[in-house]
């Protein structure tokens, strides 16, 4: 479970996240949407321990991410938008390091590496240095790293960028499967079609505040647009803040 309890985060005079109150229960795939600069990345960074809130609490499985980041991160699997991989390690060595840091013994690590290798089809390149990987290979390896320790919560930032259609399908199926297995999945994305296709609930952040929280059907109902796609609804909800020139260019 993920809980944001009236969370505020400021960057100097700018309020990036303003009183965010959000609970994502186990078994739910939640899509966090919003225009650039809305506060999505800040929200995720507070969740994974890279930022601390100025006010409020962020909890993962009941553990406060600021007070006890080590325990909180042991419940988390994180797929960042900008992946850092040790270029001079192979994928297998990186997975072994991750397993060791999560306290898995050698046998368990080996077993789980075999499981993730099969799930993400890593066998063809797992023993090559990561510096030789394509973007798709890197993304698959990062998913394997994030899921190696069977986390209760999976946080994914922009999972579809740079993926070919087949890999994108694999990722979408995986996220749904994780949610079905009772895990909490938080996905931040600009790819609205994906959110529309797989998310249980949607949150639309705008200027640090949740402008909408609910299912797609509820969003349609709120905007009285029963047959519109998410893209249209999203633009209608967020375009009020764009400049006149931007509206003309990107209506």
């Amino acid at each position, binding site marked *: 479970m993920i809980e944001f309890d009236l969370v505020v985060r400021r960057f100097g005079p700018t309020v990036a996240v303003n009183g965010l109150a959000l609970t994502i229960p186990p078994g739910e795939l939640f899509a966090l949407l919003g225009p650039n600069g809305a506060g999505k990345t800040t929200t995720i960074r507070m969740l994974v321990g890279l930022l601390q809130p100025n006010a409020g609490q962020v909890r993962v499985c009941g553990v406060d991410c600021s007070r006890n980041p080590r325990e909180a991160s042991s419940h988390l699997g994180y797929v960042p938008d900008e992946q850092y991989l040790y270029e001079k390690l192979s994928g297998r060595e990186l997975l072994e390091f991750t397993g060791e*840091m999560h306290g898995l013994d050698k046998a368990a690590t080996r077993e789980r590496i075999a499981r993730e290798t099969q799930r993400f089809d890593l066998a063809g390149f797992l023993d090559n240095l990561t510096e030789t990987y394509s973007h798709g290979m890197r993304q698959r390896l990062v998913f394997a790293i994030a899921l190696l320790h069977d986390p209760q919560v999976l946080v994914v930032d922009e999972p579809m960028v740079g993926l070919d259609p087949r890999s994108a399908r694999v990722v979408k199926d995986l996220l749904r499967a994780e949610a079905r297995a009772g895990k909490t999945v938080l996905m931040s994305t600009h790819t609205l079609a994906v959110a529309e296709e797989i998310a249980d609930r949607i949150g639309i952040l705008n200027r640090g505040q949740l402008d909408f929280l609910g299912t797609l059907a509820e969003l349609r109902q709120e905007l009285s647009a029963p047959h519109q796609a998410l893209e249209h609804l999203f633009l209608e909800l967020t375009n009020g803040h764009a400049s006149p020139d931007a509206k003309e260019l990107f209506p």
Partner: protein
Amino acid sequence: MTTALASPPPGLPSPEAESRGFRRLEWRILRTRLAQGFALSRLRYALVIGLSVLLWFGLYYLVWDGFSFMKEKLELRLHEDLVQDIFNAFFFALFLMLIFSSGVILYGSLFRGGEVRCLLTMPIREERIFQHKFQHAVLLSSWGLILLGSPMLVAYGVVARAPWYYFAMVLPMLIAFVFIPAGIGAVLLLAVMYLFPRKRVHLLTLAIAVLLASAVWFFWSLLSRPDTDLFTPRWFLEMRQRLQLAQGSSLPNWWLSSGLLEAAGDTWSEGLMFLVLLIANALFFRELAGMFAARVYRTAYCEAAGLASPPARVQTGWFDRTLDRCLGFLSPPLRLIIVKDVRLFRRDPLQWSQFLVLLCLLLLYFTQVHPVTYVTHLSQWVNIVSFMNLSVVGLLMSTFTTRFVFPLVSLEGRRFWLLGLLPVKRESILWAKFLFSVGCLLAPCGLLILLSDWRLGVPAVLIVEHQWTSLLLCLGLSGIGVGLGARLPLITEQSPSRIAAGFGGTLNLVVSTLFIVLVLALSTAPFHIHVARQMALSYPLGDAVPVFQVAVRSWLIVGSLAGPAVSAVAALLPMWIGIRAFRRQEFH
């Protein structure tokens, strides 16, 4: 709000297991780097190792000669005191520099970059992440100390006929010593980032200013003209007075120098005591920094990550407009590319600050050299020193072209979608970079040499010759830098320092050094010999004088023609090779 307050989560590894995991990680990375390096960059590795060995033995010989001279000329007590003073001053300067350099390196590795961002999202103790980066910082900031310090200490041991345990203690003492300033630097950095994250830039600027002022004051006090002639007993006493600052017995540099001298003087127990003292303090500062990091690092990281960067608004200033007008004689594409390169260079202080520091130190040194220092006993030194100053400036310029000019073409790699689509011939891009480089080199090179010559009071003919040589050097070094940069680009790399550290950069440095040696040998050396003869200085020539005169005259004539020819070849041949390669270069 720190992890230190929380109880350890169940199932996560112990500190020892974490440490083993990181050691394995480091070992695997090192093993891969070495294997790749020896498989793919043999020449580079051979050059680096070969040049390091050469430098080590060169330093060893110089220092050995100096210590032998001192031992021979000075009475025993004065000799011992002076050696301790030299060691104290050397290690004191390094102590201060290591505090600063480890702080700067740790700032880059602990608060910026992808690795810590990744590690902080994993269930790893903050202390472990800190120790991992701290060891890197120690290694990075101390290899220079080992390279420079070890030949000096070994040479002293040889001259002093030190027992075997002196040599065995040198490396452990140096390593233990390095951890002390590095630990202090780390604690200071963490304190600044935790307590004053918003003032970090101001405090860093202040620290740089204090360090520079201290360095200027220290060098000024050392180099300012003594009231007596060189190498007289009074001169030695005066130098000792100037080195008093570094002799406090509570300073680690004093423990290091005392420990080494005691070990060299056959009192192994005293040497061992100082070694243990250094190790104990090294461990203390390392632990202190680790404990401090455990409490404050994540909070400090989050604070630093949460600071808004001020918007960097820029506008075309008077400098750009003046430069644009001054370059009016060039074609518009050339002019625009040069102005663009100057702007990029100017707006990236990381690019030019180190060079500026070196330039300032040379400037300081050149303002302090004075012929009176030399004429009383060693009047021929004016001639020699002016030649050596010219050589030093040339070598400094070659490091400049390797660090800044060689990467210019590589850095265009990712931006080539812009330059490549402009209606500009590719060779124009290279010629613009060549002119940019010549312009950047010529002013500092010429002015530094002019200052040195003026302070030394060298004859007018030598001043003109030195300016001519500096022009030849700037042209050749620019051609080599731009041409090889285009022939051996690293178009996917965006870090100039990494581009310079690659094979191409190493080759550029070696070729540039050879070029400087050649031009100086052909063009400048015969002038100096000729002028020295005209100054009626003594030469042990005996009967060979007429033959020698003919040889010098021939050398002068041939060198006068060959110097410019070598410079032209050095400028044009790499440019031609570079242009051919650049025309064929594909940018992905």
